[in-house]
């Protein structure tokens, strides 16, 4: 009589499952890269067929060369660092100033309602529109760039922080009151942690807007940075560097957004998740 070796059977099934999971992962990576490979192939094809002037379009390999060149010269890393520093400075001010202001505004319903339209309005007037005014005041200096970044970042941060405070379910505040908590205590224990997911959203939006304003500012004002790198390269007609700069921009933003900002936001959303019922 044959007997089923259940143990062996299970082992085989598990091994097969693990293998197919691994294959799925490898396949997944190919699938994610696929469109980019396709895009690059398309790029190469267009360049080969139309043979445009080097001031308009350049083959992908030239861009790769430009990458190694500019890294070797130390130019690209230095500019990237500059841009990141400027962004970081904006983030710090945004956090240190914007979040407390948002909390204060959010605590009182009437004040929050009063502040909302003004915040929305200035959010709509992007920092870029104020660029000429700032140049008139501060010239083509670092201060202009910092001002733009801070301006662009502050409104989403304040607004979202405010919203975060306002959307804390009132029952949480009531529960704290029932336990005899004083108002400063309620702010510390309920409103500050409760607003955290919205604060993260505000930061993400603010950094997104601030990043774009930064690049625009660097186009106009110059003085180093990725934006300047791209702008300057176009003025000189070196398209490979223009395209390189754009690609680096995209990659940097993706790294900041996907590796830092979104994970933190999602983590808070899960943990706080039940608050939005």
């Amino acid at each position, binding site marked *: 009589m044959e007997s089923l070796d259940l143990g062996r059977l299970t082992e085989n099934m598990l091994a097969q499952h693990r293998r197919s999971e691994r294959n799925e992962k490898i396949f997944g990576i190919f699938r994610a890269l696929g469109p980019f490979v396709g895009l690059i192939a398309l790029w190469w094809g267009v360049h080969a067929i139309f043979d445009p002037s080097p001031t308009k379009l350049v083959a992908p390999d030239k861009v790769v060369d430009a990458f190694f060149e500019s890294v070797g010269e130390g130019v690209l890393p230095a500019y990237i660092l500059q841009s990141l520093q400027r962004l970081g400075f904006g983030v710090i001010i945004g956090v240190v100033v914007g979040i407390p202001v948002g909390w204060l505004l959010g605590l009182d319903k*009437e004040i929050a*309602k009063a502040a909302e339209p003004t915040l929305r309005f200035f959010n709509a*007037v992007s920092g870029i*529109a104020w*660029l*000429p005014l700032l140049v008139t005041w501060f010239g083509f200096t670092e201060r202009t760039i910092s001002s733009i970044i801070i301006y662009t970042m502050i409104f989403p941060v304040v607004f979202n922080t405010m919203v975060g405070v306002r959307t804390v379910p009132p029952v949480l505040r009531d529960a704290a009151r029932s336990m005899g908590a004083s108002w400063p205590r309620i702010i510390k224990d309920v409103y500050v942690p409760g607003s955290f997911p919205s604060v993260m959203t505000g930061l993400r939006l603010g950094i997104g807007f601030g990043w774009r304003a930064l690049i625009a500012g660097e186009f106009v004002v110059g003085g180093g940075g990725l934006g300047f790198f791209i702008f300057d390269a176009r003025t000189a007609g070196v398209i490979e560097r223009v395209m390189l700069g754009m690609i680096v921009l995209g990659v940097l*933003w993706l790294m900041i957004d996907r590796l830092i900002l979104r994970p933190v936001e999602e983590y808070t959303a899960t943990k706080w998740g039940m608050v939005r019922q």
Partner: protein
Amino acid sequence: MTALAPVGARQTIWDRVKVVLVPAIPFLLILAVWASVRTIYDHPISVLPRIIDVIEVPFREERYWSNVRASIWRLVLGFTVAATTGIFVGLIAGLSRRVAQTLNPLVTAMNAISGIAWIPLAIAWLGVGTSMVVFIIWNAAFFLIFGNTMLGVRLTPQILEESLLTLGANRWDVIRQVVFPGALPYIMSGLRAGLGFGWRAVIAAELVGATSGLGQWIFEQQEFARADNIVAGALTIGVIGLLMDRVLLAPLERRTIERWGLVESSA
């Protein structure tokens, strides 16, 4: 023993007036600060204009209006193309799970390279002027609309499509009657975001490389140190941006998806 209801319990006219007045307070505060700084310091028009100088601008400068028109025209052009292409391609692409999955990384990447970063390249390809600006607007809005539409299609429950097919509809009917309305909330949010980014892109593009338009005008005024024109221009940019969202898209959203109960009203 029943006691009487409290007096003055209903909503009064004063309550309604408050709703309009209270939000204006911060604006009034800003104006007050502005006016006081001016009275104390009396800066030249190049640094801090008088409030009245700024208000006069639309009436005084005829180039103001031609530039506003130019910018809005470019936005309309670029956005319309972006919206139609974005929704159309998004609908088609979204129907296939494979295609959507394949294209998603591309959309993400394109969104990551902000519209503004394309300006130098666009200048290299199209030179300075209207076509470059329109291209930038299209670029800024298209990928957002496309991505959102695709997402919306993918998230529309399969079962709605299937039930219509069993009723004998063909593919095109299904797209029109189920997929498109089902994806509409996402399409709407894509349109709103696309319009916002598109408008910002107009200004940035004109600032850097155009011969007319609001963005170019305020930059030019910077060379003449006419802060009154610059401030007027900047405020105009904000007002137009807000108006477009509030007057165009929000009501559209209300009449379609909110009425159908697909989303709750946004603030």
